[in-house]
């Protein structure tokens, strides 16, 4: 345990918690940082190839493992979406896509993208890589549990993928898995498929809990000296709050999975009422299908924010770094993240306005849902106010951020339609809903993921991705995705219902055929455009420019490691000591246009810092 202050001046640590008096004069007090509360952790260093790259305990490697596994599932999800769009745009063209297959694609695409791709990527991938680096820790606090977390996730993915190969195929119950149809004949994969899905989800929750505890406790307990909560980058705030949500929300998914497994295997009736099937009364009775929906959405709605909050955090940091300006209204941003997180537990039944639940719930859930729009809107204002009077680098990273703002605002506004109970009535279960949630929690977070990849690639791989290819990648993806989902809302207005295998014979679809074909074509292009990124990465790794240290001139700690890419232990011999928030860009009086979090006040005494 080292205490920089003690070493420097022999001055004994004092109990005073805050420092006042910024600005003028250099006094020995001004660099004071509280001593560390916890001793530094002992790191377990890998002794073999397997310990280093397979059963690794280094959060950075685990992060990359999570990332790659999640991307693999994402590719599967993408291919499934292609097959769906093929059927929807050009029914019958691919004869092998039967209705059974189509519903299996729909289900697996949804579940994969939401849980196994986005959640795992943001929290398992970015969370693992960035949390210790950004808060100035050597690793997660429980590295061994962290390793188990990834492998549990890996097994969950393996079980999920295995369901493609069992008799009856994967479940085709829709990603919401609404009983009773989920476990009854008439739904594809009602035997093995649904069982493997439920087992896989349970494993995911168990694995995720291991990781989640790590993220939370590392952020609460292992921050370096001077890294107060209100000096944390918003990325960390977003991931932290999302993890807390996940810890509270995933148990609801776990219990509903277990109950449904029991309904399926033991013939219990948690969710199963009296049912008449092919003239026979089944041996179920007394259960409630709506109970499942409450449990599912008690998980499912926070889940939206489990994906969105890390995206909010990351994009805030990317915008600030590349606009060379402090994030506007940091404290408001933090409280908005926390507030959205808390409110997200009181809005779940807005997915159920027309589910047959007591309709009086509608008043309550519409109100809470629209209240949540306020902190969300504040975040949007603060992003664009960060751009305002900035010095904006229009590079690939910034383009993805701008694309995020456009798609997120678009998807957020359509959320106000759907949240507003009676407006939801005509639009629910139509393509308006499909367009809305893809825009707001598919495309918008994806924009952030892509921005984050271009931003942190130099840190992870030590090389700069090609800007020109990056811009091509951005514009095809952004324009393509926008032209998929923006017009799709209008199919919903016509009344075209979602989850229809085929309806070109319906009067509601006569005018929509051309639009549907256009959407499908755009979907093929956008999917294929992701190869540009793959090509860019391959090319960069082979011939790319070596990244200098801190190429973006950012302030946060991950760019101030002893080596690039950072080695195990992250910060060399001494942990960094933090003196300021990570958003001191273009501070009046400073020579450079950025002040690292580690810059001590005495080193930059002539600056006029407003907040330290």
């Amino acid at each position, binding site marked *: 345990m080292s205490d920089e202050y003690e070493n420097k001046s022999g001055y004994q640590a004092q109990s005073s918690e805050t420092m006042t008096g910024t600005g003028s004069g250099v006094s020995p007090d001004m660099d004071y940082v509280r001593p560390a509360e916890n001793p530094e952790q002992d790191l377990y260093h890998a002794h073999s190839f397997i310990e280093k790259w397979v059963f690794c305990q280094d959060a950075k490697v685990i992060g990359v493992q999570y990332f790659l596994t999640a991307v693999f599932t994402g590719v599967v999800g993408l291919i499934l979406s292609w097959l769906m769009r093929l059927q929807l745009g050009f029914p019958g063209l691919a004869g092998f896509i039967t209705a059974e297959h189509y519903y299996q694609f729909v289900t697996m695409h949804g579940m994969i993208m939401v849980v196994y791709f986005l959640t795992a990527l943001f929290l398992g991938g970015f969370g693992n890589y960035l949390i210790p680096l950004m808060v100035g820790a050597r690793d997660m606090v429980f590295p061994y549990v962290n390793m188990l977390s990834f492998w549990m996730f890996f097994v969950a993915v393996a079980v999920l993928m295995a369901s493609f190969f069992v008799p009856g195929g994967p479940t085709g119950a829709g990603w919401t898995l609404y009983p009773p149809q989920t476990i009854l004949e008439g739904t594809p994969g009602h035997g093995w498929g649904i069982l493997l899905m439920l087992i896989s989800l349970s494993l995911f929750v168990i694995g995720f809990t291991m990781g989640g505890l790590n993220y939370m406790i590392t952020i609460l307990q292992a921050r370096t000296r001077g890294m107060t909560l209100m000096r944390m980058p918003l990325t960390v705030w977003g991931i932290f709050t999302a993890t807390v949500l996940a810890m509270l929300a995933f148990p609801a998914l776990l219990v509903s999975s277990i109950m449904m497994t029991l309904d399926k295997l033991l013939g219990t009736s948690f969710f199963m009422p009296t049912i008449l099937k092919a003239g026979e009364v089944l041996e179920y009775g007394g259960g409630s299908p709506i109970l499942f929906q409450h449990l599912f959405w008690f998980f499912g709605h926070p889940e939206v924010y489990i994906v969105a909050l890390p995206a909010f955090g990351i994009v805030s940091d990317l915008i600030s770094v590349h606009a060379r300006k402090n994030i506007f209204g940091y404290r408001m941003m933090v409280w908005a993240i926390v507030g959205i997180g808390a409110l997200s537990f009181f809005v779940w039944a807005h997915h159920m306005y027309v589910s047959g639940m007591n309709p009086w719930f509608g*008043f309550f859930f519409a109100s809470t849902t629209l209240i949540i729009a306020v902190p969300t809107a504040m975040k949007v204002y603060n992003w664009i106010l960060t751009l305002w009077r900035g010095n*904006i680098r229009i590079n690939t990273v910034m383009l993805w951020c701008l694309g995020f703002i456009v798609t997120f605002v678009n998807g957020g506004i359509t959320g106000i339609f759907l949240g507003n109970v009676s407006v939801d009535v*005509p639009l629910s279960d139509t393509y308006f809903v499909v367009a809305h949630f893809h825009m707001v929690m598919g495309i918008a977070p994806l924009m952030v993921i892509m921005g984050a990849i271009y931003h942190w690639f130099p840190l992870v791989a030590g090389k700069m991705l090609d800007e020109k290819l990056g811009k091509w990648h951005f514009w095809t993806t952004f324009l393509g995705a926008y032209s998929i989902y923006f017009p799709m809302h209008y199919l919903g207005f016509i009344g075209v219902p979602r989850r229809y295998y085929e309806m070109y014979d319906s009067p509601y679809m006569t005018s929509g055929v051309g639009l549907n074909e256009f959407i499908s074509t755009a979907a093929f292009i956008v999917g294929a455009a992701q190869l540009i990124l793959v090509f860019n990465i391959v090319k960069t790794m082979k011939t790319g420019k070596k990244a200098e240290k801190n190429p973006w001139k950012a302030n946060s700690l991950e760019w101030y490691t002893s080596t690039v890419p950072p080695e195990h232990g992250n910060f060399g011999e001494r942990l960094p000591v933090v003196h300021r928030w990570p958003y001191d860009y273009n501070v009046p009086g400073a020579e450079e246009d950025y002040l690292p979090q580690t810059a001590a006040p005495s080193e930059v005494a002539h600056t006029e810092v407003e907040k330290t």
Partner: protein
Amino acid sequence: MHAGIIFLLVIVGSVLFHIFTPWYWTDIASNWQGMDDTITLTFWVGGGVFVAVCLFMVYCVFRYSYKEGRKAEYKPEDKKLEKILTWATTLGVAALLAPGLIIWNQYVNVPKNAIEVDVMAWQWGWQYRLPGEDGKLGTTKVTNINDENPFGINVDDPFGRDDILVQSDFINLENNKPVKILLRSVDVLHNWYVPQFRSKMDAVPGIVTYYWFEPNKVGEYEVLCAEYCGVGHYAMRGGVEVQSTEDYNKWLSEQETFQDLIAKQQKLEFENKKLVKNNNLILNKDIYKEE
């Protein structure tokens, strides 16, 4: 620069698309004009916010693109601005929520004079039941359902006898008469949805759910199942015809009641018995002959 122009085109394109779209909602055929109006209002307010935010972003891209040596403003917080924005947003949201809740209040409170229509759903089809002269539907039970009693009506319930049964995916409704749709399902979730009526609700096995509307345009409409119900979901469609009172009453008088069905079945049974008896006689004769 190029980036700003493309983003600007995306915003302008979105607005133009909305104005000139050939794809918009179907002509409304029910009393729920208020839903359409709230959507229009939300479009104006929400669309305005979308355009304003995006245009401001585009402006920043044009105006504050990177220039070597330029100083960005250093102003971590602006309490006043944040306060104004918070209150303005809250106000806007409240203005949208209010009409939404008012219409929802109408949606959940069914007018007293609404005619009840029992919509029964299964994998994969619909059938309908209307009250008879007593104006009341008889009670039902899933376990009662069989070939003789396709709606599962409680035979002891006097209100059930005169119920009018429509064993078809198609139903007729009377124009300008409020209808209370009572939904029931015998197996999984379904949802009886006609886009022109704007309204919908899930049918949930085990309970009876409801919603109401008042059709106000004579014509034929397609009925869609709007809640995923298994592999036949996309084919689970029906029809509804809204008719003038005169036509509707004519149609109604041609429909069979539960009483008619029972009578028909009893007659059938009686004839069956007779048939069996005759057969037995013939058989007996044959046996007799052989002996």
